[in-house]
């Protein structure tokens, strides 16, 4: 969570200066991408591969931001973090990823009701 907020600070190519600045949604999306990249690069290797879902929560978040922009991406990320590893395991189909059973819960399984 703090990483997402810190994204604009540490994000390398995020510039918000006058005429050349990106739209606020795009800035937030880039910030989120930077934050997720930071998480994947520095925290996840130490924290370990513990997410029982596929795609992992960080990848899911990245996909959600890419597909639906900053606001819906953020909301879907929060939703996924609350659902990760609990009732969803009994609801979603199971697949094997690198020999490990995972719960298949892509973005498409959670936005079908308003995108289809």
């Amino acid at each position, binding site marked *: 969570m703090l990483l997402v907020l810190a994204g604009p600070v540490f994000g390398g190519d995020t510039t918000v200066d006058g005429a050349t600045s990106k739209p606020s949604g795009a800035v937030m999306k880039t910030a989120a991408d930077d934050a997720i990249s930071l998480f994947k690069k520095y925290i996840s290797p130490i924290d370990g591969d513990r997410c029982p879902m596929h795609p992992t929560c960080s990848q899911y978040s990245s996909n959600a931001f890419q597909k639906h922009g900053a606001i819906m991406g953020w909301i*879907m990320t929060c939703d996924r973090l609350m659902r990760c590893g609990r009732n969803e395991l009994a609801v979603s189909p*199971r697949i094997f990823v690198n020999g490990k059973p995972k719960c298949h819960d892509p973005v498409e399984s959670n936005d079908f009701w308003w995108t289809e």
Partner: protein
Amino acid sequence: MISGGQNRKNFRVTFALMLFIAAGAWMMPAGPLNAQPLQPRPLQIDARQQLALADHFFAIEQYDAAVTEYQRFCFFFPEHDRVDYARYRIAMGFFHQKAYETALARFGHIAGTDYAGEFSIDAGFMASRCYTAMAMGARAVANLKNLMNRVDDRAIHDRACYEIGWIYLETARPLTAATLDTAQSYFARISEKSRGEYPVGRLIAGLDRARTAPDGLMASMKRPRLAGGLAVVPGAGYLYTDRYQDALIAFLFNAGMIIAAVEAFDNGNEALGCIIAGVELGFYAGNIYGSISAAHKYNRQRADAFLNDLRPHGTSTSPDSQSPAIGISIDIPF
């Protein structure tokens, strides 16, 4: 430095060598000295063999190879009386490869406008299956209705009604009482004569029960708007959709974050309070979004389970295969 005389000498030597090699190559026999000259045995494949090969590939589900062999058959034996069959199987091959647009074009060509050929009726039905596979349920139904209008055959009408009923059930999402009613009306149109061929009584009873019974499918469906409304109290929406663990986490997490934000503001830490409140806003909205999504997922799961139960076991609604089959399901808890 090479002089002109030296150059001419080198050229003569090179030319003589090339001449020698060319003469040797011309005089050399093509194979070993004691080998008999090869007599190529012409391989003759008749139409029956070619078709058998194509059918073999089709039977072992190598549809790409099957399509190639059927096309070879059509090319070499264009006057053969099984060419229509081969063309139909080519279209089926594309269908099984999930190349639905190509298959649709082929089936449309076979069906023609008057459904007069040997395989044109089946092709018409398969064209509808292509539309269904491409999530174009309305086109699939329209195609079958067109077929019913053009072909005056009670058995074909019954088959079309059966297919249309299933198209409604398989393509309509979310599954509503109106959809069940429409599907049921098409199943009910199947004539008494064909009712032995299709499980009409079972289908109608199942759909009727799903629509009206207190413990039927419609009664058990969750209302997404209600789930979203209940989620104003964090976790209540998940609770409504039978997700008890998610409900507990949503309630504790959101309550904790709200208390933390209030405490931060009360203690004069406005900056911290704003950060916590901002993060909490996302999780609160996520709780509402997740509750609505959970209701939709619940309904979809229930609808899929219902259709699986309703579908005749061991048979396919596809006209391509109507033979019974046995399946094994393995469930691995983790």
